[in-house]
């Protein structure tokens, strides 16, 4: 009997690929709640987030042999979830986009202490109106507690761009949230 608790994600993936398909249930146990939360924040719809999460696990299983176990599994599966969610949004949903030139004047302060729970709740309400380009890094950073490096791997953008998008997203959020509150 294998003790999966002591195994890393990458080790479990190796077991699934080489020995036992059923070990994939361990991967699902570890990631389903995280991915449901992530896709729900992206799609703003819990039913669709379940479908997208399920598709993510299916796609991950089918392509599991392409995963390099020297790399981080978490970033790999989040990347698949990101792709699935983006495809879903472009197929089914109209995004509430802000005007391209929309910005907060430089002299105004950006949003601070977003880590606080009450601020995160406000953020959830506002995030719908932000273009996906900006909402994604914010969701990954504040809700999924991913580092800039991991966000860079998931979204396939340079770390500098991650930082820029998060800063810009904060400015947009401040403007939107202030209007709503």
């Amino acid at each position, binding site marked *: 009997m294998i003790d999966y608790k002591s195994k890393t994600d990458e080790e479990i993936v190796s077991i699934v690929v080489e020995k036992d398909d059923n070990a994939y249930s361990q991967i*699902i146990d570890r990631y389903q709640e995280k991915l449901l939360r992530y896709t729900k924040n992206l799609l703003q719809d819990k039913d669709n987030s379940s479908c997208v999460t399920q598709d993510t696990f299916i796609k991950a299983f*089918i392509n599991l042999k392409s995963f390099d176990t020297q790399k981080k599994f978490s970033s790999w599966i989040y990347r698949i979830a990101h792709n699935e969610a983006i495809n879903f949004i472009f197929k089914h949903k109209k995004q509430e986009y802000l005007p391209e030139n929309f910005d907060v004047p430089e002299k105004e302060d950006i949003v601070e202490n977003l880590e606080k729970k009450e601020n995160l709740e406000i953020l959830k309400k506002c995030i719908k109106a932000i273009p996906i380009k900006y909402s994604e890094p914010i969701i990954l950073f504040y809700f999924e507690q991913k580092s800039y490096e991991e966000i860079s791997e998931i979204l396939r953008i340079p770390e500098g761009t991650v930082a820029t998008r998060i800063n810009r997203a904060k400015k947009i959020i401040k403007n939107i949230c202030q209007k709503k509150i």
Partner: protein
Amino acid sequence: MSKENINNNDKNIKEDIMQKINKKELRMRPKFYFLIGSIMTLFGLLSTAILSVFFISFINFILRAKGPMAQMRVGQIITNFPWWMIIVVAISLWLGLKIIKKYDFIYKIDNKILLSIFLITTLLGGIFVDLSGFNRQFIKKGGPMRGAMQRYLKDENIDNNLKKCFFIKQETDNLPKINCQEGGFNRKNMRY
């Protein structure tokens, strides 16, 4: 979403997927599938890069064969220039960039830098191929641009010395012999 709902969703997702796996409705793709994918990606990238390089070298070749801009032959170049080649180059460059982005490490490089590196490398490659005489070897010995270059030399009003050096004999046999370098033409014999 309440904790209970999340748990129900979790259970359904897990049960559904594991059931499909056990019934063999879901199977992992074999490793060679991804290996073939990588080889095809590399092949696609090389093909688009080579196509761009050769078309750029061909464009460079045509511009030189047509004569210098200093002699105000711009009009002739514009009317006779095979503009479709520019479209082919643009498409192959765009395809090349799309393929490059398939590589895992590429996202770390800024898009503008990546685009600049790819464009400059391809342009320099095209100029190098033209100047090194590779394309002249291709015209004589066979190669991707042989037919197109020979047709172009035949159809257009190109310097006869240049035609002679490219072995288009039926049109230049009656001309006096010229000093063509091995594998190419002697620049001294060209009128520019």
